[in-house]
């Protein structure tokens, strides 16, 4: 199998990642955890699109994964195409849409800049802004200031973007550890089947088995909190 085939014939892995995130966010009541990030909130919010071939089901709503049509679509063989996700970590909230087949991100709304702790109440989070100038700056200096502010904005936006991507990547690492090992068929698939068909999933039992599998795969972390 060449690289092209490894990419093109395995794009469904992205769909299964979304399915697993959806499943875990429901089973663990929207509180997931990675070794690197500790626990954080993650849930599907706003839009979920599932498909099988030309057949597409789009579900919109506050928690689209909990709509009856969502699980029915899974039972009819559809898999997630894209999902709008809400992430809540370290006092920050962000929303994004993750496309399964390319892992492309769209509509990423970054957390709002928090007011600085400075007494004036103005400014942004790091990197610090410059102090206001006393006199109107000449055109060249004003342009330089504008460019510098644009750079600061870019730097800050990229920093937060990387933080969010880091969470998604850590989740993907855990998913791969399960997906590419015996735990997928022994632990995850039976739980997914129960969850899809509306039977209850023992979150503690699943969490313990999953943690054990991740430890065996070398991706140790604690059980997600319920």
């Amino acid at each position, binding site marked *: 199998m060449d690289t092209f085939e490894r990419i093109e014939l395995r794009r469904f892995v992205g769909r299964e990642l979304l399915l697993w995130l959806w499943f875990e966010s429901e089973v663990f009541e929207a509180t997931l955890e990675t070794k690197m990030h500790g626990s954080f909130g993650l849930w599907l919010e706003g839009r979920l699109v599932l498909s099988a071939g030309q057949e597409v089901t789009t579900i919109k709503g506050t928690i689209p994964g909990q709509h009856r049509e969502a699980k029915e679509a899974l039972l009819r063989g559809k898999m997630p195409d894209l999902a709008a996700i809400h992430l809540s970590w370290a006092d920050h909230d962000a929303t994004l849409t993750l496309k399964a087949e390319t892992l492309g991100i769209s509509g990423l709304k970054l957390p709002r800049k928090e007011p600085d702790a400075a007494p004036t109440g103005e400014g942004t989070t790091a990197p610090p802004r410059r102090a206001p100038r006393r006199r109107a700056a000449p055109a060249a200096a004003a342009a330089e200031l504008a460019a510098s502010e644009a750079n600061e904005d870019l730097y800050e*936006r*990229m920093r937060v973007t990387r933080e969010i991507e880091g969470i998604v990547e850590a989740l993907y690492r855990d998913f791969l550890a399960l997906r590419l090992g015996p735990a997928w068929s022994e632990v995850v698939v039976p739980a997914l089947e129960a969850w899809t068909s509306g039977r209850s999933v023992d979150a503690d039992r699943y969490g313990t088995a999953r943690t054990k599998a991740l430890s065996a795969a070398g991706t140790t972390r604690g059980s997600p909190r319920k």
Partner: protein
Amino acid sequence: MPALRGSLTYARFFVDGDAAPHDFREKYMRAIRLRAMKPLEPDEEELERSGWCKLAEPFELELHYNDVFCNEYVALGFRTDKWQIPGPMLKARVREAEAAYLEKKGREKLGRKEKAELKETVARKLRRQTAPATRMVDLVWSMNEGIVRFFSHAEKSGANMMELFHKTFGLRLVPESAYTLATRLGLSKAQESAWQEIEFTVLAKEEAS
């Protein structure tokens, strides 16, 4: 699609190769200036062209060091100009020109070469009366990570950007996918061979049986 404001929509590309040769900033700056956008002219044969511009500023083509380098990031705009003359308009004008030409020459038919030349003349005339469509997509290359974030999901635009990126920096880009991200995160030998064997998970068994 902007990198500096609003929500972010982007695709990631992994840089294949060593991104930081000796005195890379100067080298890259020269290479970027060499591939900066050159606007299309009506009399040129090229109907579409791409080049670099300042991030978020499609008409800023004179690129300065501070516009491009921001700490570990290389920030650029990927601009594409394309002549977009509506097909029906071109057809109608060509018909008019053909009729006028035949009348002038006192003939009834045009040769294939004459037709093509006439069409090109008409298209050029129309291009002089209009301006090419300009599209710009922001791009941020994080050199520490070896990742390019391209603020569009359009396939064609991404492919054109990859080509220009390679011409400019001599580096290939690999689009992110489940597999490329997995290898980037690190697959063990066992996982690599498991990847080749994995099959789609079927949850619809009960319905099927």
